[in-house]
């Protein structure tokens, strides 16, 4: 039983990481009042270029580099269309998501001459971290140890983002851009530029989520491997109103429920219901949260 609980919590961290990273990225756009739904596409693109870079140049660092570049390019496209040219943000996001799916599927076939998935023993994964002291603690050690390092980056990032958002000049200006753009403009700051930076941050974080998927979680690329995680991250951002630490907690809850769902199949719960569990629970949280807000 112990091993199962350890595995459950270990898995919850693994499942939560890509969602949390993408949500932390999307959070910046949320605060800048940019309705950015492109996390899904940015994540998928990041996942593809992570495998591309790592495989082509033989080191995971190249994977990260290429993924970040792809995230920046998509953020650039998004900014050009949605911020400079003022195209509808939602439509731009849909466009980017579709572009990412089509582009990665095509590139996979054109570059690696395979369809479906590219799997190879020579793709170098991102390193796993063994925590020196924590490792010795009986239960906790097993849960926290031997994760790819991006898991810890995600947890740390939640706190760093909190500080950036609420304690720095940049964070203040970013939130002001969302809440009262006229005030930002009145002190001579460029709203467009702040929105642009929010898109860039979204690109970076979402690309990292992609790296985690294709070089951390598993070591392969398969078509559409982001599989809706970007949308979940969007739901979480809106659910917790863009606060970084609750984003991390909600992602963890989501990861936990997803894996608990699989475990429940052992107790004759039909798999169709267990697959629903995270979503139903999210709706329930949303409902009770909104209710409490209304009565208080």
């Amino acid at each position, binding site marked *: 039983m112990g*091993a*199962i609980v*350890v*595995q*459950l919590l*270990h*898995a919850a961290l*693994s*499942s939560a990481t*890509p969602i949390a990273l993408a949500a932390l990225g999307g959070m910046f756009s949320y605060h800048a009042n940019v309705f950015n739904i492109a996390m899904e596409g940015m994540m998928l693109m990041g996942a593809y270029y992570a495998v591309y870079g790592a495989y082509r140049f033989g080191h995971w660092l190249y994977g990260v580099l290429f993924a970040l570049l792809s995230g920046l390019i998509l953020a650039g496209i998004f900014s050009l269309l949605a911020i400079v040219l003022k195209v509808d943000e939602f439509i731009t996001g849909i466009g980017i998501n579709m572009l990412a799916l089509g582009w990665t599927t095509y590139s996979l*076939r054109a570059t690696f001459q*395979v*369809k*479906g*998935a590219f*799997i190879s*023993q020579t793709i170098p994964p991102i390193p796993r971290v063994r925590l020196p002291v924590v490792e010795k603690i009986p239960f906790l050690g097993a849960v926290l140890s031997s994760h790819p390092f991006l898991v810890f980056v995600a947890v740390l990032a939640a706190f760093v983002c909190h500080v950036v958002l609420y304690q720095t000049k940049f964070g203040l200006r970013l939130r002001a851009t969302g809440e009262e753009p006229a005030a930002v403009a009145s002190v001579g700051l460029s709203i467009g530029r702040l929105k642009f930076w929010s898109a860039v941050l979204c690109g970076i974080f979402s690309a990292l989520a992609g790296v985690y*998927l294709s070089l951390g*979680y*598993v*070591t*392969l690329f*398969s*078509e*559409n*491997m982001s*599989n809706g995680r970007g949308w979940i991250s969007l739901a979480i951002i809106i659910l917790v109103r863009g606060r970084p630490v609750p984003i991390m907690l909600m992602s963890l809850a989501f990861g936990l429920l*997803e*894996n608990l769902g*699989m*475990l429940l*199949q*052992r107790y004759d719960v*039909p*798999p*169709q219901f267990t*697959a629903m569990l995270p979503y139903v629970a999210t709706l329930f949280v949303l409902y009770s949260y909104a209710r409490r807000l209304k009565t208080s």
Partner: protein
Amino acid sequence: MKKFLFLVVLLLSTLLLAKPSRVAYVINGSLGDQSFYDSGYAGIKKLEEDFKVQTRVIECNFDPSLYYPSLVTAAQWADVIFVISYGFEEELKQVAMKFPNKIWVNIDTVVQDEKGIISSVDYREEEGAFLAGVVAAMVTTMTDLAGINPQKIIGAVGGDDDIVIRSFVYGYEQGAKYIDPEVQVKVIYVGTWDDPAKGKQAALQLYAEGADVVFQIAALTGFGVLQAAKEVGKYAIGVDSNQNPLVPGRVITSDLKEVGKSIYTVFKMILDGTFERGKVYSFGVKEGMVGLAIDEYTRKILPESVIEKIIDIQNKVASGEIKVEPYRP
């Protein structure tokens, strides 16, 4: 008069059927799964080489709005249409009714229309899964092998909870019980076919529950299962095509479904006139359409004596000495 007309139709249709020169391959999904659809595609390519026929592949990419027009396009162009029609069996019947002179061969499920136009190739996948269960149960009881725990537990990860996967699981369980009735089989249905990350998660959970071998029946999701085996130093079994080399030393064997070979066989029957319309062709281990991939990767993991025993059981399934019960929903 009626008899005469019938004869004319029969004569005409045999004349028309005499030399099929165009073959279409219509699939509900898309090529690139590196197993099921691709195996069929390899068969189609082989027809092109060996019989100098023209071929065309129509992929529906799981888009239901494409099912009907794809079939019509195929029927207008081809003489023989091989179809993988999960989810559009009704459309297939309708279109076949409109083009009754074409040869329709549905693969992997049974589709029957009232007029007996459509033929089906039905796999006894429970036989292949039975053999996978045999291997898994043998390995989980070989406690001297690296990474094997004393518990007699094996697992399977299914892409979704549907009839085909259920019959896989049913056969797998029978195979395990054949070796050792105490072996426990644990299954997780992931609910998605293209999420390797979730597949890995499911497999890791099964390994944590004490399973030593996990059988993946989940297309792209299943790649994650193979990688999970590597991470924890346990074993996995591949599906549909030979996946042993994907994670060397961790994938013991693969449960093959020779879609390409069966397309080739059916087409040859069409050519030599033994093909029958409306018939259900049942292919299993005996016909060589279902079976295990045992190669040098298997030999690196298992000793020769065990492999001999597996092959012996495979022969017994082929000869009918061992009966595998099909799944009845």
